[in-house]
């Protein structure tokens, strides 16, 4: 992931062998992307960011053709095409010319053509581009199912962090062509050592009151953030919660929310 122009699509194209790297080397599933391009072809399915559907072809015809161009025999290509189109949720529409498809249907066909030759790795470049919220949810669910049910590794490139958070196990953040961070998602979105408190009243005064009683508190807009003691010691954590409760009673401040803060991918961009 990365902002627009960070180099996500370029990275994908280098991995697929569509663009020669100007320097350095890359390998995909143990194969060098420049020297072993032939070995990679059968292993990888690619869904590009841009439109790639000839408008006067039907989805059935196009996906079958793509299967044959991946080296499947004609009869097997037809079977596989019918199967993956059903999987992505295209039924009767698949015999209509693709020029009349909605963006949602077009995205499904693009996913189907990437799946048709049964690759081991699926590379999806901005798969939710142009979709409305409902279509986006469906596409994300489809991608997640494809990953878990089919046992395929899925590499998704996107600048929409919220949606990545929902379907990914790990992330790589790049910016301006450079690697910024690469981690498993759990490490980032787990509970953090910060307590978030929303109060019905003056947050600034409440933060000062907590600080006066020895808590590491600061206010952030309408919220108060309290640093929990290190070491996730249950007794110490509980004592902090109690101290907050006591302070609220003492000041007569209403508590609206009290929770451990969770990490978000958005934090990386701040």
């Amino acid at each position: 992931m990365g902002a627009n122009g960070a180099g996500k699509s370029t990275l994908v194209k280098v991995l697929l062998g569509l663009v020669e790297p100007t320097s350095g080397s890359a390998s995909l599933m143990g194969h060098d992307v420049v020297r072993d391009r032939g070995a990679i072809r059968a292993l990888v399915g690619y869904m590009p960011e841009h439109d790639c559907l000839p408008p006067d072809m039907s989805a059935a015809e196009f996906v079958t053709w793509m299967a044959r161009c991946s080296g499947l025999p004609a009869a097997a290509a037809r079977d596989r095409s019918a199967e993956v189109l059903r999987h992505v949720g295209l039924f009767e529409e698949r015999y209509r010319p693709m020029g009349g498809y909605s963006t949602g249907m077009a995205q499904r066909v693009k996913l189907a053509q990437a799946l048709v030759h049964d690759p081991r790795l699926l590379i999806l470049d901005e798969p939710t581009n142009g979709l409305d919220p409902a279509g986006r949810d469906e596409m994300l669910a489809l991608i997640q199912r494809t990953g878990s049910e089919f046992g395929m590794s899925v590499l998704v490139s996107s600048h929409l962090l919220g949606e990545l958070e929902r379907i990914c196990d790990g992330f790589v953040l790049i910016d301006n062509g450079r690697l910024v961070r690469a981690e498993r998602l759990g490490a980032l979105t787990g509970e953090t050592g910060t307590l978030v408190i929303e109060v019905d009243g003056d947050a600034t005064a409440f933060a000062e009151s907590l600080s006066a009683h020895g808590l590491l508190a600061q206010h952030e807009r309408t919220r108060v953030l309290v640093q929990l003691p290190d070491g996730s010691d249950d007794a110490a954590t509980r004592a902090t919660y109690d101290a907050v409760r006591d302070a609220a009673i003492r000041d007569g401040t209403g508590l609206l929310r009290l929770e451990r803060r969770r990490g978000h991918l958005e934090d990386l961009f701040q």
Partner: protein
Amino acid sequence: MTTPGSYPTPPRGDVTTIHDLGYRRYEGARVGQAGAWRALYGQGLRTMFGLGRPMKAKALPVLLALATLLPALALLAASAASQGGLPIRYAIILQPQLILFVLFTAAQAPELFSRDQQHRVLPLLLTREITRTSYATARLAALMTALFFVVLAPLLLLYIGEVGVAADPAAVFEKMGTRIGPVLAQATITAIALGSIGAALTIWTSRRAYATASVIGFFLTTAAIAVGIDNLLGVSQRVVELVAPVRTLSMLAFLLFGETTRGMELDPPGSIWLYIGALLAVSTAACAVLVARVRRLVP
């Protein structure tokens, strides 16, 4: 036959389940690059005639192909009326039809070379079992095969017709036996020349209109230059014939079928190998341009 008792007993308290097969891996055969090449070639050849496409896509290629047959049919009808008295002259018939073949190339070559760029199918193909070189060769082969059939059709019609309308078909067939060679040679060389030039020109743009215009423009320009140097510089007819590919193809037809015009009688043409060599040289150069361009295309 199994006896009823031999059926396996269902497990105790069995639950009816709907078996969702879910996703199935593909474990079957893969035919690799050769199969992918055939798929690309086959799809290209069908596209050239609008097969499997809507009626709109069929109209132009079918009309052009039919138009090339009309003069041949007219000549055959005239020949039949005169009971084979009117000689059938292949090269004379072919000469104006070369323009129609050029139009066919201009209209249909972009269907292959520009469309894949316009609809951005090229990056998909290149991540499959298709290399840049196999893309260029499969598409070029499809274009040449289509042109071969389009050029062959009127010549073959004349050939079959000439035998058919003769008073004594057997005798004519005897005499004509050697003529199928020139028919095939003319169709092959015309397909190679027009196909490679058409491909080398249309690969440069993803806009079909520009691609079509560039093909028509090329053949018009070379024809105009040929006329120009003929009138202004008064150079040898050999040079003029070699400048415009359409005129080279026309001269080739006259030599292959052993026909002459008044002009050729006054100024005998060069060796047939001169024209074949020139056409193949242009074709080779065009193929090199095509392959070089496809190598550098950034999808």
